[in-house]
Structure formats: C-alpha cells, structure tokens
C-alpha cells in the first residue's frame, strides 16, 4: 500500500519525495530524467566540438522544457481527459495549416513560423493522439468493441497520414505507434493483434509503392550500405565505424576520432548515440540504455498504480512510446533500421522534441501525484 501517501499527513519528518509530491513532481522519475539529461549535456559538449554556446542553448531549452513539465504535472488528469478532444482537434487544424502555409526546411514542410519561434504541430500530436484514444476507449468498459476499435484506429490514422504527407515518415510512425500502444493496452484480443500484424506485413509492398524516392533509398541503403558509400550509405557506414571502433570501453570522453575529425554527420543530433558508443564503448552505451529502461519502467509502474483506466492507458502509452523512440534511434544508428531522422530522446541537440518528451513525463507525474487516497 502507498505508505508515502498516508505519510503525507504526517508532518514530523521532512522528505524530498514528499516535498516534490506537493508540487506534483515524482521524485524517482525526476531524478532519472536529470541524470539522463546531465549525461546528455556532457556528450553534447563532446559531439558539438566543445562549444559552450551550444551547451548553453541546450541548457536553456532543458530549463524551458522542465518548466513546461512542471506546469503540466499540476493539471489534474481528469482535466486532461476533458480537454482531449479539443487538443486533438486543434492539432489537426494546425497540421492542415502546415500543409497549406508551412515553412519548408530541408525539403519538408513541418514548421509553422509564428514570428517569435517556429513551431512543429506534429509535436502536439505526439501527445494528443494517445490522450484522445485513451480518453475515448476508457469511456466504455474495456476491452473495446469492434466499432470503438475502428473509431480509435481512425483517430490514429488521420494525423499519421497528414504528417506522412509533410513528409515526415519517422514522426508519423512514432505517432501511430503511440496510439496503437493504447489500443494494445486496452485489452483487445490477441486474435485481432495477430491478424493486424499479418495485414501490416502484407501491406508492405503497398507502402513501398507510396513511399518517396528518398525514403526508398534509405531502405535500400539499409539493406546494403556499401552500395553507395559516399551518398546515402555514408551516414550508416560512418556511424557503424564510430560505434565499432569504440570497443568495450571506448576511446574516452572528447577523444573520439570519428566524431572530432568530422566524419560522422549530424553528430550532435540524430547520430549522437554513435558518439557515445565511440567514446564510452559497449559499457557506456549499456549503462545509457539501462537508464532509459529504468525511466520507462518507472513510467510503467506509475501506469499500473493509476486509478482510472484512462490514466493507465495514457501513462502506459507514454512510457512505452519513450522506449520506442530509443529503439528506433539506436536501431537507426546501428544499421538495424532505416535512417528516419528520430533524435535520441533527451540527449540529442534540439528543443522541440525535448519539450514534448518532458511534457509527456509531466502527464505521468500528474497521474501519479493526483491519486486519491484509497485502496486500489
């Protein structure tokens, strides 16, 4: 039973956990995130050619993102559930706006230029989709009926298609998986799941047909990177060399030659994992992956302790999607998955994904710290 919840009314001893809980911050999760982001900053210092300016910018983003996390943690989960339709609707409108007025960057329309800052509406959908699907499915008893399942799928497919059209296949797949995880957690029968997987596999050729040329190229490159060593295979080859040359214990911090002689592209963003692998070796990346796993497990624990089905579904989806991010990024840099441009969560340089991720953790903390005292 939740000893510390009962202890909250015992004023005799001061406790960090309790102090943080009063501002709706979950101490364990928070510590895990802080350790991860500190390690990230250290690696960024090395990957970014020891630029303190880069570090400072990242630090500012982290602070802003932590502030947003705190704000969201103080919103009651019921309010989130109530507003889920509005958030989702607004997100869809913004996605349409991007397709119509969007700002082009690197050949894809993903940004809305709001004068003060540029804004990527697909980031909203990363949280809006699991939020809405969880709210919708939890309205009725679980497991959901076929009809509700189909409505849930439609809720997932619409934003995924809009984002895939930008084109940003990586984000589209991540958003789809965050929604699908909710459906999976809601208890649909295994028959449906297996049927779905079979359908997906058989749909691969169709997907191939609708993919953009550069996306096809990435898949081909994955299968045989040496076919184009200076073109699209370059990323994967250089990344594998960086990782492989790291060995068991790595070359040491700031000593990675692949990274510092600038052979490794995008080394402070999407390929930062390769820098870690080169400088800290198998041992270092093992620790890092362990940390990711621990954070996700704490999230899953929060899900299991949640008091409503909505909260459980949402918390479960956020925690597991976080792991999907890690796996997709690491799979990409190790040559297991095609290059889709997904950053390593909370470590890669960049602000937008940082804000979304910490906002997600804010939701987890809100769910955990707003529980009513009652036996489960």
């Amino acid at each position, binding site marked *: 039973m939740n000893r510390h919840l009962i202890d909250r009314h015992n004023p005799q001893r001061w406790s960090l956990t309790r102090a943080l809980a009063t501002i709706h911050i979950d101490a364990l999760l928070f510590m895990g995130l802080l350790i991860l982001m500190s390690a990230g900053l250290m690696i960024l210092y090395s990957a970014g050619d020891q630029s303190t300016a880069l570090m400072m910018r990242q630090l500012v983003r982290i602070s802003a993102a932590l502030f947003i996390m705190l704000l969201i943690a103080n919103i009651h989960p019921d309010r989130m559930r109530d507003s889920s339709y509005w958030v989702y609707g607004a997100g869809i409108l913004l996605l349409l706006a991007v397709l119509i007025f969007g700002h082009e960057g690197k050949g894809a329309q993903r940004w809305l230029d709001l004068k003060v800052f540029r804004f990527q509406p697909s980031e909203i959908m990363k949280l809006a989709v699991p939020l809405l699907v969880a709210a919708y499915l939890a309205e009725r008893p679980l497991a959901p009926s076929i009809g509700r399942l189909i409505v849930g799928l439609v809720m997932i497919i619409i934003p995924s298609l809009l984002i895939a059209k930008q084109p940003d296949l990586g984000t589209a797949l991540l958003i789809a998986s965050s929604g699908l995880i909710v459906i999976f957690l809601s208890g649909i029968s295994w028959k449906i799941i297996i049927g779905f997987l079979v359908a997906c596999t058989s749909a691969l050729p169709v997907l191939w047909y609708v993919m953009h040329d550069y996306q096809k190229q990435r898949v081909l490159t994955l299968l045989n990177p040496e076919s184009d060593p200076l073109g699209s295979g370059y990323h994967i080859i250089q990344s594998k*060399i960086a990782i492989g040359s790291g060995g068991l214990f790595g070359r040491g911090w700031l000593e990675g030659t692949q990274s510092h002689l600038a052979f490794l592209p995008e080394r402070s963003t999407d390929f930062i994992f390769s820098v870690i692998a080169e400088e800290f070796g198998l041992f270092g990346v093992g620790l890092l992956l362990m940390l990711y796993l621990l954070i996700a497990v704490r999230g899953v624990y929060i899900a299991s302790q949640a008091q409503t089905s909505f909260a459980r579904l949402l918390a479960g989806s956020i925690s597991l999607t976080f*792991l999907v991010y890690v796996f997709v990024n690491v799979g990409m840099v190790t040559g297991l998955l095609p290059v889709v441009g997904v950053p390593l969560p909370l470590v890669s340089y960049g602000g937008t994904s940082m804000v979304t991720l910490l906002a997600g953790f804010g939701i987890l903390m809100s769910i955990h710290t707003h529980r009513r005292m009652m036996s489960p």
Partner: protein
Amino acid sequence: MSTKFTLKDHFTEGCLINDRLIFSVLFACLLFLIIMVRLAILQVLEHEHFDSLADRNRVDILPIAPQRGLIYDRNGIVLAENIPSFSLEITPENVPDMAATLNELGQLFVVAESELDEIKQKIKKQRRFRQFVFRQRLTEQEVAKFSVNRHKLPGVDVVGRLIRHYPQGAFFAHTVGYVGRINERDQKAIDLQDYKGTEQIGKTGIEKQYEDLLHGTVGFQKIETNVQGRMIRELENSPAVSGKDLFLNLDVNLQYVAAKALGEFNGAVVAMDPKSGAVLAMVSKPDFDPNLFVTGISNKNYDALRDSVDMPLFNRTLRGRYPPGSTLKPFVALAGLELGVVSEQTQSFCPGWFQLPGQDHRYRCWKTHGHGQVDLKKSISQSCDVYFYDLANALGIEHLHSFLDLFDFGHKTGVDVPSESKGLSPSRAWKRSTRNQPWYPGETVISGIGQGFNQTTPVQLAHATAILAMRGVNVTPQIARATRASGQSELELIAKKVAENLPMENSRHWEAVIDSMVEVVHGTRGTARHIGKGISFKIAGKTGTAQVFGIKQDEKYDAELLAKKLHDHALFIAFAPADAPEIVVAVVVENGGSGSRIAAPVARKIIDQYMGVEPNE
C-alpha cells in the same frame, strides 16, 4: 458486447491493462537484448575491423590561401603589395613543457603575464599539431635574439609568410584603406569556405570595396592523415587562384602634391577628371600608417589614433560634412537662371546687409559696407552674400532643394569606396521628418550662401563641380580603373557607373556661371585673383568660407580672438581649363580661415602639377 447497462469493473480492467503492461515490458527487454547483441557484435566481435577502418578513415582537407591582388596607381606605382614577413610560431605537440617555453618567450620578447595566460588558453583550444602564431613581423634583431636562444625553445620556429604592405605609408591610408584580421563581424559577411586559410580581409577603402576581386579563390589540398591528423601523403591538389591586381585612377604624384599643399592643416582634397569621372587624388588629413593595422594594431597605437582630437582615422573626403559656404553660390546662381528668377543682367543692390520684409533681423554680407550694384557676374566673382540672400528668398527652399538634387547634393555620389556620407541638402520635408519643426523663411535665406543646415562632403563638392565643368554631363567618380588577372598582361577595364545627364538645354546659362567663376580667378577684383597669374589657360573657381562658430548680430569675426578650432573652414572649388576642363579640384581646409587665402593656393598647386605648369615666381 458493450451495452449501456454494463458497469465499469475497475478491478478487472486494471488487471487487463496490467497484464498488457507486463507483456510490453518483457517485449521491451527483448528488444533491449537484441540491441545489446547488435552493439556487442559491432563493438566487440567486429571491433578490430572497424578500428582499422577508423584509422584509414582520415582524409583531411587543407586550405591553400590565395595571394591577394596588388594595387597600383595610374602610373603603375605600387600602393599595396605582399611582402614576406617572419613570425614566431609554436607547434604545441613539439613543446615538452609549455609553461616553461612561454615564460622563456615572455622574457625574450617582453610579454606581459596576463597576455601569456591568454596565449596559453588559446593554444589549449587548438589542435596540438597546428602552429600557433606567437608574434608577427619580427625585426631582424628579434630573429637574431631568437636564434641565439633557440636551443632553449624546442617546438618554436621562425616562419616566413606573406603579409600586406603599403609602401606609400600614410599617403593613401584613407583611400586605399587597409586589411586586418578577420573578425566575427567580417565572418558573417563572407563565405567562410572561401576564406579558409586567409587571415586578412579588406577593412576600409579600396581594400574593402574590391575585396572580392582582390582576395582570389582558395585552393585545397586533400591529404590522408594518421590518427593524430598529421599528413601522410597528398591525395589531391587544386591550387589557389590569386586575386586580381587592381589599377587605380589615382596619381601618386598628384596625391603627394595635394597632401603637401595642405601643409599642417587638417582637411581634404579631391581631384578628378570631369570627363571620365576618374578620381586623381583623394587626400584626407591628418592620416595614419595603414601598415599598423595589417597584423593587428596594438592597443596603445589604436587608442592614440582613436582618441586624437584631430581624428586621423576619420576619412574627411567621404564622411566629413562641411557647410559648403560660398562654393554653393554658382549652383544657386544656375538655379536662378534656369528657373527664370534672375537673368544675367538682373541687378541687385548690396548695402552690406539683407532683411526679409517685415523682420528686423539683418543678414550681413561679408563686406561690411556692401558691394553696391551687383549683377550675376559680380555676385559670384566678389562673392556678394546679399545677392544670394535675395535670390534664395525668391527661389524658395523647395525649388532650391530640388535643383541642388540634380547635382547630387544630399545624395551619395556613388564613388567606389565604402561608407560615403550623404551630406545634407535641407528641405521642408526633411526638417519636418527629422526635427518635427516648420521651415522658417530665414533658413532659406542663409541656404543661399551655403550656410544653415547645408552640409556637403569634399567628394560631393568635387562631383558637383565636375557636372558644372562639363555643362551638365554627369559622371560618377571612380577610383578603380582596371583589373588584371594574375599571370595575364592585358588589363580589364572596370565598368563605369552610368549616371543621367542634367536636363538643361540653355548653354548660355552654363557659360554665364562659368564665366563668373573664371572672373573669380582672373578678374581684377575676383576673390581668388592671386592664383590666376602665370598660366596660359583659364581656371574657373569659387572660394568659400564656412562658419564653424555662430557670431551674434553686430559682432565682428575676429580670428585673433578665437581659438583655432573655431576658425572658419576655408573652401575652394575649381576646374581648368575653363573652356575644356581636364581637372576638377575641391579643397576643404579645416579652420583655415579664408577660402581665398588658404584653400585656393592648394587647388592651384594641384592644377599646376596635373597640367604641367612650371612654377615661375
């Protein structure tokens, strides 16, 4: 399945979701395991393979800096060149004890403790095998001193490289300008790729204006390096392309004469060929040694230049804004003729002062007792103020302003040196927008003699005088004449900027004004008659004296009593020969006092030099 009567069973639902969560975590662990296996394969099993790949994977690209183009005057005399210079460079990886070495160097070359610390920090930040420049431009004594102590300083070498040098020293400091170290602001303006390996960039003058031409194109050497990044062998080499040489219209001899003629005074001289717009001389005094800036000027030297009350760094020819004074009169007279306000014969009476109807204020003529009856010719040759007070008042400021516009007063002339000032040609709209005040009639009156708000730069004066000399043909002043690609012998002319000629048909008006200006120099009572002797051709000119200091009504200007800083500026514009002009000169002598006594002789010396007149006195 679901009906509205079904109650939510929290416990069952919780178990259902928890089962799925447990399954998910197990699945995640499986993925985690797969990734660890993949990493182990790459990092342990295939480590040797990738490690050797990483070692081989070291191709470095080194920039080869291009040689900067040279700058010549019109006679082919070098104004800017590249000379070898010795610098002291440290290769950190060859220095066993950096602190000791730096201390030793600090004692040898007298470097302050704080500066040594700074150097230490800089060395730490760069690659250990890249040379660090400790000191540039070693003198022979310093090279000798180093050689004697060399055994104590492993890893330190004397290296020769090319640096910019200005053999004419201060004479062209303002016009040719100088190069200096590339700073952050420069970096934003250039293609960094193209400046890899280049240490200097044009900062002012021609060096800045024609940076693109002078710089050249960077070359590259693709090399294979070892683990430390040191070269093993060369793979590819694309040589640098030297910058183009630049040939200017400036004439070294004329520049010397002009600078010398100004003597001890501060001021500016601009001489140009009115037919082509070629700028022949461009002098701004005081000047400074541009060589000081090339390898980074010391704080002491820079502070001295920056804080001097004479402002030697200030380019007066382009940025000095002086009231044109009476040198504006020929243009005002032309406005009067063109707009039909006066004719050549119109007479005006000068009692020594002018009054606006209904006002008490007296606008005084420089000649206290007045010029008596004055026509156009006399008004210019004897510089009668009252005639022009009257004329300006009759024209009105708007007409005057738009006429002066034609001569580019208040506009940049477009001369090919950066940061030219626009000067100021006042109008109602200007006063309203900048000061939010109405225009007063009295301000029109004093505009007629080039006082009040009027401000012109010396290059503007020369340009306007050139238009006048050419009877309306407008050529943009141009300093650079031609370029020459490295290794070529033929010159490539730089395209001239095309300007619109003035829309004035009546040649009689031009001649009337120019005749009056000839009278200034050659008339028996002309204000500059003392420079009109001993030449076979006619000079057209106009003196000007611009007030620096306001004098109260009924007070007299007394040079003796005023501090030199408050003396009037002396101005003179001239061109010669008057009927077929070949040279235009504009002279501004700061605090020179009188245009006729101080500024006019400067112009005469320049005209003599250019036209080949033998001085005979």
